[in-house]
Protein backbone atom coordinates (compact mmCIF):
# COMPACT_ATOMS: atom_id res chain seq x y z
CA UNK A 1 0.00 0.00 0.00
CA UNK A 2 1.61 3.28 -1.06
CA UNK A 3 -0.84 5.45 0.81
CA UNK A 4 -2.68 4.55 3.98
CA UNK A 5 -5.70 6.77 4.51
CA UNK A 6 -6.95 5.62 7.86
CA UNK A 7 -9.95 6.55 9.93
CA UNK A 8 -10.02 5.25 13.50
CA UNK A 9 -13.20 5.73 15.45
CA UNK A 10 -14.78 4.64 18.70
CA UNK A 11 -15.67 5.87 22.16
CA UNK A 12 -13.50 8.35 23.98
CA UNK A 13 -11.28 6.29 26.26
CA UNK A 14 -10.71 3.35 23.92
CA UNK A 15 -7.36 4.71 22.86
CA UNK A 16 -8.39 5.80 19.39
CA UNK A 17 -6.00 8.75 19.33
CA UNK A 18 -3.21 6.67 20.84
CA UNK A 19 -3.57 3.93 18.22
CA UNK A 20 -3.53 6.63 15.54
CA UNK A 21 -0.36 8.02 17.03
CA UNK A 22 1.24 4.57 16.91
CA UNK A 23 0.44 4.29 13.19
CA UNK A 24 1.77 7.80 12.60
CA UNK A 25 5.01 7.11 14.47
CA UNK A 26 5.57 3.89 12.53
CA UNK A 27 5.18 5.96 9.35
CA UNK A 28 7.62 8.53 10.68
CA UNK A 29 10.22 5.83 11.40
CA UNK A 30 9.68 4.58 7.82
CA UNK A 31 10.58 8.14 6.77
CA UNK A 32 7.24 8.62 5.05
CA UNK A 33 4.96 11.62 4.99
CA UNK A 34 2.58 11.40 7.92
CA UNK A 35 -0.38 13.34 9.24
CA UNK A 36 -2.53 12.75 12.32
CA UNK A 37 -5.69 14.73 12.91
CA UNK A 38 -7.97 14.15 15.90
CA UNK A 39 -11.55 15.16 16.30
CA UNK A 40 -11.75 17.61 19.15
CA UNK A 41 -14.51 19.16 21.15
CA UNK A 42 -17.39 18.14 23.39
CA UNK A 43 -17.98 15.03 21.28
CA UNK A 44 -14.98 13.48 23.00
CA UNK A 45 -16.74 13.11 26.33
CA UNK A 46 -18.43 9.73 26.31
CA UNK A 47 -19.47 10.18 22.73
CA UNK A 48 -17.63 9.19 19.62
CA UNK A 49 -14.04 10.12 19.03
CA UNK A 50 -12.18 9.77 15.77
CA UNK A 51 -8.81 10.30 14.28
CA UNK A 52 -7.56 10.60 10.69
CA UNK A 53 -4.11 9.26 9.94
CA UNK A 54 -2.32 9.35 6.62
CA UNK A 55 0.96 7.58 5.82
CA UNK A 56 2.12 8.33 2.31
CA UNK A 57 5.13 8.37 0.00
CA UNK A 58 4.02 11.76 -1.21
CA UNK A 59 3.26 15.10 0.39
CA UNK A 60 -0.12 15.06 2.16
CA UNK A 61 -2.68 17.70 1.26
CA UNK A 62 -5.82 17.45 3.31
CA UNK A 63 -5.21 15.59 6.58
CA UNK A 64 -8.92 14.81 6.88
CA UNK A 65 -9.58 11.27 5.73
CA UNK A 66 -13.10 11.86 4.44
CA UNK A 67 -12.95 8.81 2.16
CA UNK A 68 -10.51 6.49 3.93
CA UNK A 69 -9.10 3.29 2.43
CA UNK A 70 -8.92 1.75 5.90
CA UNK A 71 -11.33 2.01 8.81
CA UNK A 72 -10.95 0.78 12.37
CA UNK A 73 -14.35 0.90 14.08
CA UNK A 74 -14.56 0.31 17.80
CA UNK A 75 -18.21 1.09 18.42
CA UNK A 76 -21.52 0.89 16.61
CA UNK A 77 -22.11 4.62 15.98
CA UNK A 78 -18.62 4.94 14.48
CA UNK A 79 -19.14 2.05 12.13
CA UNK A 80 -22.46 3.48 11.01
CA UNK A 81 -21.02 6.95 10.59
CA UNK A 82 -18.01 6.02 8.48
CA UNK A 83 -18.75 2.75 6.67
CA UNK A 84 -20.46 4.52 3.79
CA UNK A 85 -17.38 6.67 3.13
CA UNK A 86 -14.76 3.93 2.85
CA UNK A 87 -13.25 3.64 -0.64
CA UNK A 88 -14.30 0.55 -2.60
CA UNK A 89 -11.76 -2.20 -1.95
CA UNK A 90 -10.90 -0.62 1.39
CA UNK A 91 -10.09 -2.51 4.55
CA UNK A 92 -12.45 -2.41 7.51
CA UNK A 93 -11.59 -3.73 10.96
CA UNK A 94 -14.55 -4.16 13.26
CA UNK A 95 -14.20 -4.86 16.98
CA UNK A 96 -16.79 -7.62 17.02
CA UNK A 97 -16.75 -7.86 20.83
CA UNK A 98 -18.47 -4.48 20.88
CA UNK A 99 -20.21 -4.27 17.51
CA UNK A 100 -22.75 -7.06 16.97
CA UNK A 101 -23.79 -6.10 13.41
CA UNK A 102 -22.26 -7.06 10.09
CA UNK A 103 -21.26 -4.72 7.27
CA UNK A 104 -23.65 -4.95 4.35
CA UNK A 105 -21.28 -3.54 1.71
CA UNK A 106 -19.77 -6.24 -0.48
CA UNK A 107 -16.99 -4.14 -2.03
CA UNK A 108 -14.86 -3.99 1.11
CA UNK A 109 -12.46 -6.34 2.86
CA UNK A 110 -14.06 -6.59 6.29
CA UNK A 111 -12.40 -8.32 9.23
CA UNK A 112 -14.37 -9.00 12.38
CA UNK A 113 -11.93 -9.14 15.25
CA UNK A 114 -13.18 -9.71 18.82
CA UNK A 115 -10.35 -7.44 19.91
CA UNK A 116 -11.69 -6.35 23.30
CA UNK A 117 -12.36 -9.96 24.27
CA UNK A 118 -8.98 -11.27 23.11
CA UNK A 119 -7.20 -8.43 24.87
CA UNK A 120 -9.01 -9.10 28.15
CA UNK A 121 -8.36 -12.84 27.96
CA UNK A 122 -4.68 -12.13 27.62
CA UNK A 123 -4.56 -9.73 30.52
CA UNK A 124 -4.34 -6.74 28.20
CA UNK A 125 -7.50 -4.90 29.22
CA UNK A 126 -7.89 -1.65 27.30
CA UNK A 127 -5.46 -2.63 24.55
CA UNK A 128 -7.96 -3.69 21.90
CA UNK A 129 -6.86 -0.55 20.04
CA UNK A 130 -3.29 -1.81 19.74
CA UNK A 131 -4.45 -5.29 18.84
CA UNK A 132 -6.50 -3.85 15.98
CA UNK A 133 -3.50 -1.79 14.92
CA UNK A 134 -1.52 -5.04 14.72
CA UNK A 135 -4.22 -6.52 12.52
CA UNK A 136 -4.16 -3.40 10.34
CA UNK A 137 -0.41 -3.75 10.00
CA UNK A 138 -0.82 -7.36 8.92
CA UNK A 139 -3.47 -6.52 6.32
CA UNK A 140 -1.99 -3.32 4.90
CA UNK A 141 1.74 -3.44 5.60
CA UNK A 142 1.74 0.33 6.20
CA UNK A 143 5.12 -0.17 7.92
CA UNK A 144 7.49 -3.00 8.68
CA UNK A 145 6.73 -5.01 11.82
CA UNK A 146 10.10 -3.95 13.17
CA UNK A 147 9.32 -0.26 12.73
CA UNK A 148 5.84 -0.64 14.19
CA UNK A 149 7.41 -2.22 17.27
CA UNK A 150 9.92 0.60 17.47
CA UNK A 151 7.00 3.02 17.29
CA UNK A 152 5.44 1.43 20.38
CA UNK A 153 8.36 2.48 22.54
CA UNK A 154 8.14 5.96 21.00
CA UNK A 155 4.46 6.58 21.74
CA UNK A 156 4.26 5.03 25.19
CA UNK A 157 5.19 7.95 27.45
CA UNK A 158 8.35 7.47 29.55
CA UNK A 159 6.30 7.54 32.77
CA UNK A 160 4.41 4.46 31.57
CA UNK A 161 7.40 2.61 30.14
CA UNK A 162 6.27 -0.49 32.08
CA UNK A 163 3.42 -0.76 29.57
CA UNK A 164 5.66 -1.13 26.52
CA UNK A 165 5.78 -4.90 26.78
CA UNK A 166 2.04 -5.33 27.07
CA UNK A 167 1.53 -3.01 24.09
CA UNK A 168 3.98 -5.09 22.09
CA UNK A 169 2.09 -8.21 23.13
CA UNK A 170 -1.21 -6.68 22.00
CA UNK A 171 0.35 -5.68 18.68
CA UNK A 172 1.61 -9.25 18.19
CA UNK A 173 -1.84 -10.71 18.97
CA UNK A 174 -3.24 -8.54 16.19
CA UNK A 175 -0.48 -9.57 13.81
CA UNK A 176 -1.23 -13.22 14.55
CA UNK A 177 -5.00 -12.98 14.26
Amino acid at each position, binding site marked *: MTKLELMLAGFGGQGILFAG*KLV*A*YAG*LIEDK*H*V*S*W*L*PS*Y*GPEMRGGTCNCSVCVSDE*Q*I*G*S*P*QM*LTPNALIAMNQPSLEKFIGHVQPGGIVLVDSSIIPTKVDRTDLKVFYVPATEIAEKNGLKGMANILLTGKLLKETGFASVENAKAAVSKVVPPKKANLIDSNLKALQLGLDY
Partner: protein
Amino acid sequence: MKVLMKGNEALAEAAIRAGCRHFFGYPITPQTEVAAYMAKQMPKVGGTYLQAESEISAINMVYGAASAGKRAMTSSSSPGISLKQEGISYLVGSDLPCLIVNVQRAAPGLGGIQPSQGDYFQATKAPGHGDSHIFVMAPSSIQEMADFVETCFEKAEEYRMPSMLLADGMLGQMMEPIELKEGEPKEVEKPWALTGTKMQRPHNVINSLYIDPPELERILIERYERYAKIEENEQRAELYKMDDAEYAVVSYGASARIAMSAVDKARDEGIKVGLIRCITLWPYPKKFIEASAGQIKHYLAVEMNMGQMVEDLRLVVNGRAPVDFFGRAGGIIPSPAEVLEEIRKISKGGK
Protein backbone atom coordinates in the same frame (compact mmCIF):
# COMPACT_ATOMS: atom_id res chain seq x y z
CA MET B 1 15.91 13.58 13.71
CA LYS B 2 12.26 14.20 13.03
CA VAL B 3 9.69 14.19 15.79
CA LEU B 4 5.93 13.93 15.66
CA MET B 5 4.29 16.96 17.24
CA LYS B 6 0.98 18.72 17.43
CA GLY B 7 0.99 22.14 15.80
CA ASN B 8 0.31 23.85 19.12
CA GLU B 9 3.22 22.07 20.79
CA ALA B 10 5.53 22.57 17.83
CA LEU B 11 5.03 26.33 17.83
CA ALA B 12 5.55 26.48 21.59
CA GLU B 13 8.79 24.50 21.40
CA ALA B 14 9.94 26.63 18.47
CA ALA B 15 9.29 29.77 20.50
CA ILE B 16 11.45 28.50 23.35
CA ARG B 17 14.20 27.62 20.88
CA ALA B 18 13.85 31.09 19.37
CA GLY B 19 14.77 32.53 22.73
CA CYS B 20 11.30 33.44 23.95
CA ARG B 21 11.33 33.26 27.74
CA HIS B 22 8.10 35.10 28.48
CA PHE B 23 4.75 33.56 27.72
CA PHE B 24 1.51 35.06 28.95
CA GLY B 25 -1.69 33.25 28.14
CA TYR B 26 -5.21 32.36 28.97
CA PRO B 27 -6.77 29.03 28.01
CA ILE B 28 -9.12 28.70 25.05
CA THR B 29 -9.90 25.86 22.66
CA PRO B 30 -8.28 25.00 20.25
CA GLN B 31 -4.94 26.49 21.35
CA THR B 32 -4.75 25.36 24.97
CA GLU B 33 -1.84 22.97 24.27
CA VAL B 34 0.37 26.00 23.61
CA ALA B 35 -0.14 27.19 27.18
CA ALA B 36 0.06 23.66 28.59
CA TYR B 37 3.37 23.08 26.83
CA MET B 38 4.74 26.41 28.01
CA ALA B 39 3.61 25.73 31.58
CA LYS B 40 5.65 22.54 31.55
CA GLN B 41 8.72 23.71 29.66
CA MET B 42 9.28 27.37 30.56
CA PRO B 43 10.34 26.69 34.17
CA LYS B 44 12.94 24.20 32.88
CA VAL B 45 14.68 26.88 30.81
CA GLY B 46 14.40 29.62 33.39
CA GLY B 47 11.56 31.30 31.57
CA THR B 48 8.26 32.70 32.71
CA TYR B 49 4.95 31.03 32.04
CA LEU B 50 2.09 32.98 33.41
CA GLN B 51 -1.60 32.32 33.12
CA ALA B 52 -3.13 35.75 33.38
CA GLU B 53 -6.60 36.48 34.71
CA SER B 54 -7.79 37.39 31.22
CA GLU B 55 -6.63 37.80 27.63
CA ILE B 56 -6.45 41.58 28.10
CA SER B 57 -4.17 41.14 31.04
CA ALA B 58 -1.98 38.68 29.13
CA ILE B 59 -1.43 41.02 26.17
CA ASN B 60 -0.51 43.87 28.49
CA MET B 61 2.03 41.63 30.21
CA VAL B 62 3.48 41.08 26.74
CA TYR B 63 3.64 44.87 26.40
CA GLY B 64 5.65 45.04 29.61
CA ALA B 65 8.09 42.28 28.71
CA ALA B 66 8.51 43.63 25.18
CA SER B 67 9.24 47.10 26.59
CA ALA B 68 12.16 45.54 28.46
CA GLY B 69 13.46 44.21 25.14
CA LYS B 70 12.58 40.58 25.83
CA ARG B 71 11.15 38.13 23.35
CA ALA B 72 7.60 37.76 24.60
CA MET B 73 4.48 36.14 23.27
CA THR B 74 0.88 35.32 23.90
CA SER B 75 -1.46 32.92 22.19
CA SER B 76 -5.19 32.60 21.95
CA SER B 77 -8.03 31.76 19.61
CA SER B 78 -10.42 34.11 17.84
CA PRO B 79 -12.65 35.44 20.67
CA GLY B 80 -9.55 35.83 22.83
CA ILE B 81 -7.74 37.75 20.08
CA SER B 82 -10.64 40.21 19.94
CA LEU B 83 -10.08 40.85 23.63
CA LYS B 84 -6.39 41.37 23.00
CA GLN B 85 -6.94 43.94 20.27
CA GLU B 86 -6.70 46.91 22.57
CA GLY B 87 -3.30 45.74 23.75
CA ILE B 88 -2.20 44.95 20.20
CA SER B 89 -3.00 48.52 19.18
CA TYR B 90 -0.93 49.85 22.09
CA LEU B 91 1.96 47.59 21.04
CA VAL B 92 1.70 48.97 17.50
CA GLY B 93 1.49 52.52 18.82
CA SER B 94 4.59 51.97 20.94
CA ASP B 95 6.54 50.18 18.17
CA LEU B 96 7.04 47.08 20.28
CA PRO B 97 8.03 43.69 18.85
CA CYS B 98 6.24 40.58 20.08
CA LEU B 99 4.51 37.46 18.84
CA ILE B 100 0.79 36.88 18.97
CA VAL B 101 -0.51 33.45 17.98
CA ASN B 102 -4.08 33.04 16.78
CA VAL B 103 -5.25 29.45 16.42
CA GLN B 104 -8.49 30.44 14.79
CA ARG B 105 -11.91 29.02 15.50
CA ALA B 106 -15.15 29.76 13.74
CA ALA B 107 -17.50 32.72 13.41
CA PRO B 108 -18.21 35.87 15.48
CA GLY B 109 -19.08 35.86 19.15
CA LEU B 110 -18.18 32.65 20.90
CA GLY B 111 -18.88 31.03 17.54
CA GLY B 112 -17.66 27.46 17.40
CA ILE B 113 -14.48 25.67 18.34
CA GLN B 114 -13.74 24.03 14.99
CA PRO B 115 -11.16 25.38 12.50
CA SER B 116 -11.73 28.57 10.53
CA GLN B 117 -9.93 31.41 8.78
CA GLY B 118 -12.53 33.95 9.77
CA ASP B 119 -10.02 36.34 11.32
CA TYR B 120 -8.20 37.24 8.08
CA PHE B 121 -9.69 40.73 8.03
CA GLN B 122 -8.95 41.25 11.71
CA ALA B 123 -5.32 40.20 11.32
CA THR B 124 -4.55 42.03 8.09
CA LYS B 125 -6.80 45.11 8.10
CA ALA B 126 -7.49 46.11 11.67
CA PRO B 127 -5.43 44.28 14.29
CA GLY B 128 -6.38 47.15 16.59
CA HIS B 129 -7.73 50.69 16.40
CA GLY B 130 -5.91 53.48 14.63
CA ASP B 131 -3.71 53.21 11.56
CA SER B 132 -2.05 49.92 12.30
CA HIS B 133 -0.50 46.86 10.78
CA ILE B 134 1.16 43.78 12.16
CA PHE B 135 3.34 41.26 10.33
CA VAL B 136 1.16 38.20 9.64
CA MET B 137 2.28 34.73 8.56
CA ALA B 138 0.03 31.80 7.68
CA PRO B 139 1.62 28.38 8.17
CA SER B 140 0.26 25.42 6.19
CA SER B 141 2.14 22.60 7.88
CA ILE B 142 3.41 21.73 11.33
CA GLN B 143 6.95 22.35 10.09
CA GLU B 144 5.90 25.88 9.20
CA MET B 145 4.09 26.31 12.53
CA ALA B 146 7.53 25.86 14.08
CA ASP B 147 9.65 27.65 11.48
CA PHE B 148 7.51 30.77 11.19
CA VAL B 149 7.65 31.42 14.93
CA GLU B 150 11.28 32.42 14.67
CA THR B 151 10.68 34.39 11.47
CA CYS B 152 7.86 36.24 13.21
CA PHE B 153 10.11 37.17 16.14
CA GLU B 154 12.90 38.27 13.81
CA LYS B 155 10.71 40.40 11.58
CA ALA B 156 8.97 41.88 14.61
CA GLU B 157 12.32 42.99 16.00
CA GLU B 158 13.75 44.10 12.68
CA TYR B 159 10.77 46.38 12.01
CA ARG B 160 9.74 47.03 15.62
CA MET B 161 6.19 45.83 15.32
CA PRO B 162 4.01 43.00 16.63
CA SER B 163 3.81 39.90 14.47
CA MET B 164 1.13 37.27 14.29
CA LEU B 165 1.19 33.59 13.49
CA LEU B 166 -2.28 33.06 12.02
CA ALA B 167 -3.08 29.38 12.31
CA ASP B 168 -6.34 27.54 12.88
CA GLY B 169 -7.77 24.65 14.87
CA MET B 170 -6.76 22.10 12.28
CA LEU B 171 -3.10 23.10 12.32
CA GLY B 172 -3.14 23.47 16.09
CA GLN B 173 -4.49 19.99 16.69
CA MET B 174 -2.87 17.94 13.95
CA MET B 175 0.47 16.16 14.16
CA GLU B 176 3.13 15.86 11.49
CA PRO B 177 6.80 14.95 11.62
CA ILE B 178 8.97 18.02 11.99
CA GLU B 179 12.59 18.91 12.31
CA LEU B 180 13.23 21.30 15.18
CA LYS B 181 15.89 23.94 14.72
CA GLU B 182 19.08 23.66 16.72
CA GLY B 183 21.42 26.49 17.55
CA GLU B 184 21.31 29.92 19.05
CA PRO B 185 18.63 32.40 18.02
CA LYS B 186 19.68 35.61 16.34
CA GLU B 187 19.39 38.46 18.79
CA VAL B 188 19.24 42.06 17.66
CA GLU B 189 20.35 45.11 19.55
CA LYS B 190 17.49 46.91 21.23
CA PRO B 191 18.85 50.31 22.24
CA TRP B 192 15.29 51.52 22.79
CA ALA B 193 14.50 48.94 25.49
CA LEU B 194 13.82 49.83 29.09
CA THR B 195 16.73 48.07 30.72
CA GLY B 196 17.76 50.68 33.28
CA THR B 197 20.01 53.62 32.44
CA LYS B 198 22.60 52.81 35.13
CA MET B 199 22.96 56.60 35.08
CA GLN B 200 24.99 56.22 31.89
CA ARG B 201 22.47 57.15 29.21
CA PRO B 202 19.34 59.23 28.85
CA HIS B 203 16.25 57.28 29.76
CA ASN B 204 14.17 55.54 27.09
CA VAL B 205 10.45 56.11 26.77
CA ILE B 206 7.92 53.53 25.57
CA ASN B 207 4.66 55.29 24.91
CA SER B 208 1.74 55.42 22.53
CA LEU B 209 0.21 58.71 23.73
CA TYR B 210 0.97 61.86 21.71
CA ILE B 211 -1.17 64.90 22.41
CA ASP B 212 0.38 67.07 19.72
CA PRO B 213 -1.19 66.26 16.29
CA PRO B 214 1.82 67.30 14.12
CA GLU B 215 4.12 65.14 16.24
CA LEU B 216 1.71 62.21 16.08
CA GLU B 217 1.31 62.59 12.33
CA ARG B 218 5.08 62.59 11.92
CA ILE B 219 5.29 59.35 13.92
CA LEU B 220 2.55 57.76 11.83
CA ILE B 221 4.29 58.77 8.61
CA GLU B 222 7.57 57.29 9.86
CA ARG B 223 5.75 54.08 10.78
CA TYR B 224 4.12 53.89 7.37
CA GLU B 225 7.51 54.34 5.71
CA ARG B 226 8.55 51.21 7.61
CA TYR B 227 5.36 49.47 6.46
CA ALA B 228 6.25 50.36 2.86
CA LYS B 229 9.68 48.76 3.34
CA ILE B 230 8.04 45.61 4.69
CA GLU B 231 5.68 45.49 1.71
CA GLU B 232 8.69 45.85 -0.55
CA ASN B 233 10.94 43.27 1.13
CA GLU B 234 8.90 40.71 3.01
CA GLN B 235 6.18 39.35 0.73
CA ARG B 236 6.23 35.57 0.64
CA ALA B 237 4.23 33.00 -1.27
CA GLU B 238 4.72 29.51 -2.64
CA LEU B 239 3.97 28.82 -6.29
CA TYR B 240 2.76 25.28 -6.95
CA LYS B 241 2.40 24.01 -10.51
CA MET B 242 2.10 27.60 -11.73
CA ASP B 243 4.61 27.47 -14.61
CA ASP B 244 2.14 26.50 -17.32
CA ALA B 245 -1.03 27.23 -15.37
CA GLU B 246 -4.02 28.86 -17.05
CA TYR B 247 -6.09 28.84 -13.88
CA ALA B 248 -4.98 29.62 -10.37
CA VAL B 249 -6.28 28.78 -6.95
CA VAL B 250 -5.16 31.32 -4.37
CA SER B 251 -5.23 30.16 -0.78
CA TYR B 252 -3.31 30.13 2.51
CA GLY B 253 -2.91 28.19 5.73
CA ALA B 254 -4.90 25.02 6.22
CA SER B 255 -7.18 25.60 3.24
CA ALA B 256 -4.14 25.76 0.95
CA ARG B 257 -3.45 22.11 1.75
CA ILE B 258 -6.94 21.16 0.65
CA ALA B 259 -6.51 23.35 -2.45
CA MET B 260 -3.22 21.58 -3.21
CA SER B 261 -4.91 18.17 -3.15
CA ALA B 262 -7.62 19.53 -5.45
CA VAL B 263 -5.05 21.03 -7.84
CA ASP B 264 -3.31 17.65 -8.11
CA LYS B 265 -6.60 15.92 -8.92
CA ALA B 266 -7.50 18.59 -11.49
CA ARG B 267 -4.07 18.18 -13.11
CA ASP B 268 -4.83 14.44 -13.41
CA GLU B 269 -7.90 15.47 -15.40
CA GLY B 270 -5.75 17.63 -17.68
CA ILE B 271 -6.81 21.00 -16.26
CA LYS B 272 -3.87 23.41 -16.28
CA VAL B 273 -4.31 24.79 -12.80
CA GLY B 274 -1.79 25.91 -10.22
CA LEU B 275 -1.79 27.18 -6.67
CA ILE B 276 -0.52 30.45 -5.26
CA ARG B 277 -0.15 29.82 -1.56
CA CYS B 278 0.10 33.07 0.36
CA ILE B 279 2.60 32.74 3.21
CA THR B 280 2.66 36.33 4.42
CA LEU B 281 -0.87 37.70 4.69
CA TRP B 282 0.35 41.14 5.70
CA PRO B 283 2.19 42.12 3.65
CA TYR B 284 -0.12 40.50 1.11
CA PRO B 285 2.05 38.77 -1.53
CA LYS B 286 0.95 41.11 -4.31
CA LYS B 287 4.09 40.58 -6.36
CA PHE B 288 3.34 36.90 -6.79
CA ILE B 289 -0.23 37.55 -7.89
CA GLU B 290 0.91 40.39 -10.12
CA ALA B 291 3.45 38.12 -11.83
CA SER B 292 0.65 35.71 -12.75
CA ALA B 293 -1.70 38.33 -14.20
CA GLY B 294 -1.85 38.01 -17.97
CA GLN B 295 -1.09 34.29 -17.69
CA ILE B 296 -4.11 33.31 -15.60
CA LYS B 297 -7.56 33.24 -17.21
CA HIS B 298 -9.52 32.81 -14.00
CA TYR B 299 -8.67 32.94 -10.29
CA LEU B 300 -10.34 31.04 -7.49
CA ALA B 301 -9.82 32.07 -3.87
CA VAL B 302 -10.30 29.23 -1.40
CA GLU B 303 -10.72 30.03 2.29
CA MET B 304 -12.37 28.70 5.41
CA ASN B 305 -14.61 31.72 5.81
CA MET B 306 -17.32 33.61 3.93
CA GLY B 307 -14.83 35.38 1.63
CA GLN B 308 -12.12 37.70 2.98
CA MET B 309 -8.71 37.28 1.30
CA VAL B 310 -10.58 37.21 -2.01
CA GLU B 311 -10.98 40.99 -1.65
CA ASP B 312 -7.21 41.51 -1.59
CA LEU B 313 -6.90 39.18 -4.56
CA ARG B 314 -9.46 41.22 -6.50
CA LEU B 315 -7.58 44.43 -5.70
CA VAL B 316 -4.39 43.03 -7.21
CA VAL B 317 -5.98 41.33 -10.22
CA ASN B 318 -7.90 44.56 -10.76
CA GLY B 319 -10.32 43.28 -13.39
CA ARG B 320 -7.72 41.62 -15.59
CA ALA B 321 -9.35 38.22 -15.04
CA PRO B 322 -12.42 36.98 -13.22
CA VAL B 323 -11.90 36.24 -9.52
CA ASP B 324 -14.25 33.81 -7.80
CA PHE B 325 -14.49 32.55 -4.28
CA PHE B 326 -15.15 29.21 -2.67
CA GLY B 327 -15.22 28.70 1.06
CA ARG B 328 -16.73 26.71 3.85
CA ALA B 329 -17.35 28.33 7.19
CA GLY B 330 -18.63 27.71 10.68
CA GLY B 331 -15.84 25.23 11.42
CA ILE B 332 -16.19 23.09 8.30
CA ILE B 333 -13.00 22.23 6.43
CA PRO B 334 -13.69 22.14 2.69
CA SER B 335 -13.05 18.80 1.02
CA PRO B 336 -10.63 18.44 -1.90
CA ALA B 337 -13.59 17.08 -3.94
CA GLU B 338 -15.56 20.30 -3.40
CA VAL B 339 -12.62 22.46 -4.43
CA LEU B 340 -11.99 20.23 -7.45
CA GLU B 341 -15.59 20.78 -8.54
CA GLU B 342 -15.04 24.57 -8.36
CA ILE B 343 -11.83 24.26 -10.39
CA ARG B 344 -13.74 22.29 -13.04
CA LYS B 345 -16.34 25.06 -13.17
CA ILE B 346 -13.82 27.86 -13.76
CA SER B 347 -11.90 25.77 -16.31
CA LYS B 348 -15.11 25.52 -18.33
CA GLY B 349 -15.49 29.27 -18.23
CA GLY B 350 -18.25 29.13 -15.65
CA LYS B 351 -18.91 29.98 -12.02
